[in-house]
């Protein structure tokens, strides 16, 4: 990792895509997220870093209401997507998740063909009128997932038969296929080897052109490499949020500094 490049990271001022205000999350009695305020910009990669159990994944899952599936989880505060509260009673979480796609820590392709994996989202959302359009979406998504060249000859092969890195890129292609506006990635590279990680990181950088990407990562190097903004979580608190270069070279909070220099974590 070349620290010298950090200061050169361009941070264009973009419009705010997601705004979280005083978000608190409880798992039963335990208070997992405490008064988090964060503004996630459009066409930007935002990285959430922090030690294990600090709540970064929990917060990420709040952004597309994946926490709804956990009975004991309660979310308080406002999370606004384009100014609309996603926890409003009128919001259907299914519709929200079509706008805010998600890639998970462990590659989890459906045990179906590669084609069906990617086509599933467009199918259930009715994005394609006919087979030709669907084919087009699948090809486009697989290309954006940087996996088209590897799988174009075996679209009928099961997605579970791919290597770990390929599976994760397939999952990214699957998430992209529904044309979300925000892409949430929960430690997408933790199960991948360095080469696959590099490919996925390159891909994330490309995706920035069209989406707002939020990535949770354990690897500070990764955060430094791919993100423009970084948020540091510690024990459920958002300790510091700012341009990646600043967080890594000139953190304001002593806890951030301790973490990035490896003294806590």
């Amino acid at each position: 990792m070349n620290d010298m490049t950090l200061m050169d990271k361009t941070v264009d001022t973009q419009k705010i895509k997601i705004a979280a205000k005083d978000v608190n999350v409880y798992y039963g009695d335990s208070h997992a997220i405490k008064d988090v305020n964060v503004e996630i910009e459009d066409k930007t990669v935002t990285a959430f870093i922090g030690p294990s159990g600090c709540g970064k994944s929990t917060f990420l899952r709040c952004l597309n209401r994946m926490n709804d599936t956990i009975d004991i989880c309660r979310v308080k505060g406002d999370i606004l997507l384009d100014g609309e509260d996603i926890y409003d009673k009128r919001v259907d979480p299914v519709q929200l998740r079509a706008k805010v796609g998600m890639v998970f820590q462990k590659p989890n392709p459906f045990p179906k063909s590669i084609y069906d994996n990617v086509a599933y989202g467009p199918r259930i959302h009715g994005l394609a009128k006919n087979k030709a359009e669907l084919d087009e979406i699948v090809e486009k998504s697989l290309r954006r997932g940087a996996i088209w060249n590897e799988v174009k000859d075996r679209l009928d092969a099961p997605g579970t038969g791919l290597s770990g890195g390929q599976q994760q890129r397939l999952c990214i292609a699957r998430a992209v296929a529904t044309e979300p506006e925000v892409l949430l990635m929960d430690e997408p590279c933790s199960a991948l080897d360095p080469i696959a990680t590099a490919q996925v990181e390159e891909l994330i950088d490309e995706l920035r052109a069209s989406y707002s990407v939020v990535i949770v990562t354990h690897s500070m190097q990764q955060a430094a490499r791919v993100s423009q903004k970084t948020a540091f979580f510690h024990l459920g608190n958002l300790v510091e949020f700012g341009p990646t270069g600043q967080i890594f070279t000139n953190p304001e909070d002593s806890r951030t500094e301790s973490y990035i220099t490896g003294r806590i974590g």
Partner: protein
Amino acid sequence: MTDLSQSPAGAAPQPRKHGGSLLEKTPRTKKRNASEARFKAYGIAAITAGLIMLLILVTTIVGKGTGAFQQTFVTLKVELLEEKLDKKGNRDIEDIKKVTTFGYAPIIKAAMEAAVAEYGIETSLKPKELAGILSKDVAAQLRDYVIANPDQIGQTVEFRFLASGRVDGYMKGRVSRDSIENDKNISPAQLDLVDALAAAGVLEKTFNLDFITGADASDARPEAAGIGVSMLGSLFMMLVVLALALPIGVAASIYLEEFAPQNWLTDLIEVNISNLAAVPSIVFGILGLAVFINYMHLPTSAPLVGGLVLTLMTLPTIIISTRASLKSVPPSIRDAALGVGASKMQAVFHHVLPLAAPGILTGTIIGLAQALGETAPLLLIGMVGFIASNAPETLADGLLAPNSAMPAQIYEWAKRADPAFYERAWGGIIILLIFLVTMNTLAVILRRRFERRW
């Protein structure tokens, strides 16, 4: 945070000695090895005992039951005399039907006499005693034939008649000249006749398809009894069970597993379902009697009622296995589906259910196999006893007409007096076991075939 430099200062602790040389076993090791060897021996002994019992079971069943698949038949030429069967001679079917089975007795006696004369067998038996070696079923068989083919009256037709149960037992070695001393149904002279007819090739023991396809017979005709009709009874019950238990069970499990909130009510339901699986089947039988027959007035002895009762019994099995297989689908698949914006129902029906299907199927087959072998509840709803003498012809008949089921039929035979029925009970058990083993094998194959594809 771990820091190796923070280990306590001072003298480094000495490692503990584990005996002397590695080449010598310490007493502790010897003891441990001995107990391991002992445990292995216990295990092998247990398995051996189990296998021996299984072997004894299978040999007994096969040894005692194969006899039921063979039957002694007598081939006779019968002259269908017009003056006995159709006195008016105008082949009016109503007139022919007026001749009861008693009217056929002389014809059968005559046919026996003719056969004895033809093969030159010397016997002091009277015609009635000659015919005594044939089954009491013969007259009915003859009458059915004549009613079906009235144009054959006046001709001589060759028939294959069932020999009586005693003769059949003699041919199979169950009945001997000693054992019939006090038996009024057969005499030593008749056995001589049987020997002579067997030598002449008129009387022979062959494969008995009628046992597999036929209906039960009354106490006096064990040789005519078959398990076929009760097999149909079982089949119709299984249809009812499948049609009710599978959809209800799967729907209940999907709701409980995927949609229901976790609260005291669902917990209570869960506990009750698990408990239902342990309720003795006879309880379901008396419930069926009280609810389906006495209260809802469904017909007694009907496979529909049997099926309903067995459905109650099978439901917990299906629900438990379905929930287990739904649980075994990794949550990452649900997350994946929800993550691309599928609704909960879409996630379940598009992804979770197909992956759980092999497990559900296996559970269903095992539940059905259990239901197929169940006897106790059938006793209470009247599906045991000499019930159906004809195979049902329509689906409604199959469901509503009184019938028995395979295990109930076996129970019925086992409690009758004539040892010929006892043999048939064993034969029925062979058939029932073939069904059960087939179903369980199918379940195993399905499980292997579709095991874990993620």
